[in-house]
């Protein structure tokens, strides 16, 4: 996943569009990592990508919110994972406030 993020960061916006179909798979991988081992690596990669290219996830904003909500509601979730999930939500809201204005329930 980090390799994928690393490549997306160096691609031009036009080139990134071709990889948008992988977003759902990326979200599923992040969820599986957290669910199985409380592994934060997927969340770290996601956070990095949102930091650098928030627009990449614009079309999948709904699915991103669903992912973060699902993670937050996992039983036995570690504090670090919960904190990172919250940070991702807050950072994304700062980067793309217009998206959150349309979906206030996200906050």
């Amino acid at each position, binding site marked *: 996943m980090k*390799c*994928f993020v*690393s490549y997306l960061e160096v691609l031009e916006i036009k*080139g990134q569009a071709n990889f948008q179909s*992988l977003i759902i798979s990326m979200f*599923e*991988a992040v969820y599986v990592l957290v669910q199985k081992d409380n592994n934060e690596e997927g969340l770290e990669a996601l956070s990095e990508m949102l930091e650098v290219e928030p627009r990449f996830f614009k079309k999948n904003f709904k699915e991103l919110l669903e992912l973060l909500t699902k993670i937050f509601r996992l039983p036995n979730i570690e504090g670090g994972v919960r904190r990172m999930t919250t940070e991702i939500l807050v950072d994304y809201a700062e980067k793309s406030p217009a998206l959150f204005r349309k979906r206030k329930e996200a906050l």
Partner: protein
Amino acid sequence: MKKHIADTIGEVAGTIISAKDDAWPEFRTNVWNLFKDANINSVFAGFYILESFLTFAPDHFKEYTNDLYALFKLGLEH
């Protein structure tokens, strides 16, 4: 340790190739061979190498976007 070695290879290759694109002609072939290997550790090594390499010389794989797409798709789904 394996990740550290792979990261280092990626950085060294990236530094060399970003200075002169044809300085390491076998590099790309060697990376593809890692992904073709049945050993999962080789596949991981390939991803680690690319992760650090791409930050130095992203254009080196510009013509292979479709191949990278297929690799990432396979990696994310497994």
